[in-house]
Structures are given as structure tokens and as C-alpha cells.
């Protein structure tokens, strides 16, 4: 709190407008930034299907555990895909997911 804020508070005056501006701006930008991502949700669904189709050509995927999403952090957006693999199409188990308590691991053991 600055000296000015203190005096304003003591006199019961409104706080300086820069604070209001900052708060309004942060709200509107949070909204804008989300908006830009949500524009792509339709595309994301389409892309998810296509990615799965391609991957499914080579390996058997555990469809129930599939997660494809966009994650934004510090203005950087990344496509994060988690596709647990049950087995290769050839029937051999070549790939294993790192995640140990994953369902696909149990399936493989069966």
C-alpha cells in the first residue's frame, strides 16, 4: 500500500483508477485468452480422431485411457497426447507405457 492509498482510505475516497484498470484488464484478458483456445475445440476433436486413426494403424491403443488436450502455460500452448498402448498390431508387445498403475499394463499381462 502506498502513502496515497493510505490517505485515500483514511478519507474514505475511491482508490486510484489504475488499480481498477489493472483488475478489469486482467479479467478481460483471462477471458480473451481462453476464447482463443476454445475456438479450436472443434478442430481439436477432429485432430484427435485423425491422430488416433494414424496411431491405431501401427499399435493397439487403449481407447478408454486416451487423452488429447491443449495445455497453456505462460503463453505457450502445447498439444499433450497420452495414448496408452496395449500391443503392436503385429501382436508383439514392444511398447510399454511409463505409467505403472495404468490399465493397459494389466491388460498386457493377461
Amino acid at each position, binding site marked *: 500500500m*502506498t*502513502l496515497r492509498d493510505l490517505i485515500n482510505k483514511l478519507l474514505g475516497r475511491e482508490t486510484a483508477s489504475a488499480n481498477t*484498470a489493472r483488475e478489469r484488464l486482467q479479467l478481460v484478458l483471462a477471458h*480473451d485468452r481462453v476464447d482463443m483456445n476454445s475456438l479450436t475445440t472443434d478442430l481439436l476433436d477432429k485432430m484427435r480422431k485423425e491422430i488416433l486413426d494414424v496411431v491405431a494403424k501401427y499399435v493397439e491403443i487403449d481407447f478408454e485411457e486416451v487423452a488429447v488436450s491443449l495445455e497453456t502455460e505462460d503463453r505457450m500452448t502445447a498439444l499433450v497426447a497420452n495414448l496408452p498402448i496395449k500391443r503392436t498390431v503385429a501382436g508383439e508387445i514392444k511398447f510399454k507405457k511409463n505409467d505403472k498403475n495404468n490399465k493397459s499394463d494389466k491388460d498386457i499381462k493377461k
Partner: protein
Amino acid sequence: MAENTRTILICSGKGGVGKTTLTANLGIALANSGATTAVLDADFGLRNLDLLLGLENRIIYTAQDVLDKNCRLDQALVRHKKEPNLALLPAGDPRMLDWMKPEDMKKISDLLSEKFDFVLVDCPAGVEDGFKNALAACKEAIVVTNPELSAVRDADRVIGILNTSDIEPIQLVINRVRPNMMASQEMLSIDDVQGILSLPLLGIVLEDEQVIISTNRGEPLTLTDGRSPAKKCYLNVSQRLTGKDVPIIDPKNEGKSLKDKFMRLMQTKVF
């Protein structure tokens, strides 16, 4: 030479925040420091860079004629009489917007890169085709904004788009800064704006009536002899852009009157 050329997009999203004024002043300042500099008006709808540089009566050919091969690049470039290191490539007429593609702008900037150390591209307002065309021509960007809600919001949209391109670095210039209003906390502070947009700060430019006067005359402040707050800032931005290690002008140190000092006292943190 071509590979070392720095092609810089000067953009803002919102109109009227000072892109063209910054382009003109930076262009003169860079040219004056010895770097050959071209300023390209990418605002085909509403071109104004020629006016700010006082070159409006000397335009014969435009970027359009170069693309159509009606003339050579040399013929379209308008050299500044007082600053021979600076040349303007004027935008074509608004009808160009219909057929212009990002590749066309790229072609123009490649031609300019063969001859100049710096190419400054004055971008149109908005985030539509005109902006995307200009974007294709550049390797780095300067985002200009004012410490105002609407300008910062629009800058954020532009930065969002720039971040999805290979433009790098993207730097921030905060224009029309009023130290008194910042001191009395009636204006977003430099830290506020920079924090929200999270870009490295290239510099600030103080609000200054001299800017209007220099526009009236068609002589950018960096070309004139006088001393003015904005001129000092433009020179500071230009130096920092060329990698000189000079500190950013701090609005807190501007304004020497008793009132300014009192305002600063009021800003002291009490707890």
C-alpha cells in the same frame, strides 16, 4: 548482407497508438547512427508514413509497381534528403489488399534485405490479412501499446498471434506515457503493462506535444535539433535496438517540478 538484415515488424493491434510515429522516428535515428535503413509502409488501406517523414510529394512508384515489375526497386525507393541513409518504400493503393498475399510482402522484404541493414515494416491496425501479410515479411517484432485498457487488450491479441509464428524476439514499447498520471496512480504503470503482456521491454516514450508539431511539419523529432522528452525516448529505443547497453528511461525520474516530487512522495510504500 542479406542474412544480417534485421526486418522488424512494428505492430499494435489497435490503431492510433503510435506505430507510424515510432517507425518514422526509429528509421531516422537508426539511419543517423550509420545503418542503412528502409521503412516499408505495409498499411495499404490507410498509408501515412510518407506524411510523417515529409516525403508525400516525392512518391512516384510504390511497392505495387515493384511487384508488378513496372519499375525497379531503386526507382520506387524514396530517399530522405536530410538523412540519406533512410529510404521509404510507399504502400500501393487500397485495391492491393484484394490480391496481396503474404508471399508478396515476403518478396518485397527480401528485395529490401539485399540493400539495407534495417527494414522497418509499419504494420496496419487490426489482426486481419494486412497484419498477416506484414508479419510474413519480418523476422522480429516490436509491439507498441499505450498504458490504456483497450490498447493493452489489443496488443495481447497481437502477441498471441506473434507467438504462434517464428518471429523472435518480440519486444515491447510503451508509448504516450504520462509520468504524472502514473505517479498519482491514475494510469497503468510500466510494470503493470509489461507484467500483463510479459514481453521484454525495449523502451518507453513519454507523451509529448512536440510529436504533433513534428508531424505537422513532416519532420520526425529524431531529425530535429531541439530537445524534447519524446525525442530522448526515441533515441533511447533506437540505441537499445542496436544492442547498446543503455538503461530504459524511467518515468519516475522525469518531471522535476515540486508537484512531481510530491506525487513521487505519495507513491512511497508505507506497508
